[in-house]
């Protein structure tokens, strides 16, 4: 059957070419985009196709919730597209599988993509063992969203800069809150804030070449304790997101004054919060242990799949989508933040008060551990917090358990690295 397909592939273009229509000689690129971006990217592609009449881009939308499974199944079935949008925690997996094309040489020769124009933290997430596998498309980092009026009522006129100040503010807000209301919403089904607090410490999250958990280190213990105390002190409700019917309504109702979330919520807040609180909210960078802290740089990158037979055209498309103007348009269409400094300059973005805090923080972003197991480890981090918060497990035990579980998850990686060392 394969032979037939190949024969057909050889014969068909010839037959069509004979008809003489230039239209049919076009190269078709398949582009897998995810969720919201998949809906808006066709608007950008019209211009690309105008500039490159020989290329046609077919966008396939992967539902966010099934994208990961689909990418891996497609790899197993040799059905990956030419170009894709890849969340940067998934990059290591596909790089490990050898599914991605290294891009450094193309970047070096590119007049459009200059790595020094990108925020370092986000560029770094695309480099695995010294090899570049993707070009950042948009960036995402967690920030503090807060109610200025509730904070003012508690006696503060500026957002917190460090943990100590944050604690004081949380305590004060709780004191001034109606009974049953809280200071901050930290959904128990999310790991982001805890992991962000973790990377603000000197101790890395993983040790020994990322083959063992380092969660019993003094640094992570501080972060974990700070996080858990927010629940223990009654500042945060021990709830998961599904238990809060509508985070925006509850934010407007004053159920909580702080909420740590990502840039997409700026648009959602503007759209969904009732008019009466529209003037009363702002964003601020994440406080660190002593002053503004580091944060994980998330987001998505554009990648070229190794099996693509149209690498030149794929690269043209990556270059096109990486132009500062296109990144600004992407922002206009769906609120994604550009990963390039030049895309921020002289635009509405630079003056948007809500985006300012993001811009500030982007300079301090760092990469999450770049190993395929990371997402699974992050889930374990969240379960550890849940066990202490909901189950009342002592912190020492939760962290000990966490390291043990993470070590088990990393067992295979450890074995592979040892084997590689043994046989040079």
């Amino acid at each position, binding site marked *: 059957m394969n032979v037939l397909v190949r024969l057909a592939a050889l014969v068909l273009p010839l037959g069509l070419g004979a008809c003489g229509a230039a239209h049919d000689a076009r190269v078709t690129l398949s582009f897998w985009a995810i969720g919201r971006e998949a809906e808006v990217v066709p608007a950008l592609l019209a211009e690309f196709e105008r500039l490159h009449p020989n290329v046609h881009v077919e966008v396939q939308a992967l539902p966010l919730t099934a994208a990961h499974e689909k990418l891996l199944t497609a790899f197993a079935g040799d059905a990956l597209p030419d170009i894709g949008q890849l969340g940067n925690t998934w990059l290591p997996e596909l790089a*490990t*599988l050898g599914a991605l094309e290294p891009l450094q040489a193309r970047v070096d020769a590119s007049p459009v993509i200059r790595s020094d124009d990108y925020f370092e933290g986000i560029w770094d997430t695309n480099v695995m063992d010294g090899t570049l596998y993707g070009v950042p498309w948009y960036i995402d980092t967690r920030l503090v969203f807060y109610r200025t009026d509730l904070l003012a009522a508690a006696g503060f006129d500026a957002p917190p800069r460090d943990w100590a100040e944050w604690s004081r503010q949380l305590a004060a807000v709780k004191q001034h809150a109606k009974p049953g209301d809280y200071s901050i919403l930290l959904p128990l*089904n999310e790991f982001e804030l805890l992991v962000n607090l973790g990377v603000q410490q000197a101790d890395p999250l993983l040790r020994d070449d990322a083959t063992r958990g380092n969660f019993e280190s003094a640094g992570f213990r501080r972060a974990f304790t700070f996080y858990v105390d927010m629940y223990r002190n009654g500042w945060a409700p021990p709830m998961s997101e599904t*238990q809060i*019917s509508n985070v925006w309504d509850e934010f407007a109702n004053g159920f909580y004054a702080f909420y740590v979330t990502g840039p997409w919520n700026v648009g959602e807040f503007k759209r969904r919060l009732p008019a009466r609180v529209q003037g009363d909210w702002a964003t601020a960078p994440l406080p660190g242990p002593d002053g503004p802290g580091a944060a994980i740089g998330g987001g998505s990158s554009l990648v070229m799949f190794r099996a693509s037979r149209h690498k030149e055209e794929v690269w043209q498309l990556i270059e096109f989508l990486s132009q500062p103007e296109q990144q600004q348009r992407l922002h206009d269409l769906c609120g994604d933040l550009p990963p390039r400094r030049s895309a921020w300059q002289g635009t509405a973005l630079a003056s948007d008060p809500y985006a300012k805090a993001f811009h500030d923080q982007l300079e301090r972003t760092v990469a999450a551990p770049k190993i395929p197991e990371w997402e*699974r480890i992050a889930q374990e981090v969240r379960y550890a917090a849940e066990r202490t918060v909901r189950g009342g497990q002592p912190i020492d035990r939760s962290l000990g358990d966490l390291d043990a579980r993470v070590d088990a998850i990393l067992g295979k990686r450890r074995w*592979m690295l040892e084997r590689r060392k043994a046989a040079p």
Partner: protein
Amino acid sequence: MNERRAAWLFTAPALLVIGLFFFVPVLAAFVLSLTDFDLYALADLHNLRFVGLGNYFDVLRAPLFWKSLANTFYFVGVGVPLSIAASLGAALLLDSRLARWKGVFRTALFAPVVTTVVAVAVIWRYLLHTRYGLVNYLLAKIGIAPIDWLGDPHWSMPAIILFAVWKNFGYNMVILLAALQTVPAELREAARIDGANALQQFRHITLPLLRPALLLVTIITVAGYFQLFAEPYVMTRGDPLQSTVSVLYYMYEEGFKWWSLGRATAIAFLLFALILVVTRVLVRFGKRGGYA
């Protein structure tokens, strides 16, 4: 062509398909469950290790496995009796001499069985919506506060059970109805003349005669309900608080989300062993006449 050669000719294609696409994969699954086949092995087979029963021990030590097992038992333990009670009730009504338009009712009650799980799960997810769902609307009419069916860990499994009962009761109803129709009318008539009321007739005449059929539907339903997957996949994704993660859902996540294929097949075998044991126990229990 003689009879024997014809027999092999007739059976060979089907046996080949079943052998190649069922028995071979099952045997391979067992082998796979003894290895650490994962993402790394998928990239390069040199990264494959034989781990013996390691996956089985790992799974048995994983809290989520026990959680998924408890969830599955919850679903089976509550869902099966409810389903069969609904089926039996509907079958008795349809069997009643007083019932009209039996064919129409039978068709109507059976319709949910043939529907596509995914499509009707979409409907139910909305019927069960906390704010706009009709279920909560009706509950409000009788003074019950809105229930967060799919968001509250205490209600998510009951919601899925409710859905499964609705979807499946027609199937067993048809089987039980056929069994009921074999109960001789004279027997009941005689009991009625002896002064037995409807309940007594049911307990002493109908139920004993129905026992083989009840045992059969119990076994079919138990084996089917242990394989819960599509309902949580569509309605809750295993949330909230992993309260709707079934064993099979857990296997799917291990296998196709995290690509621990070795471990995932070990989970599948554990589930198989469990179904085997439970159905065996049911059969023995049924044979000993433990129903009365």
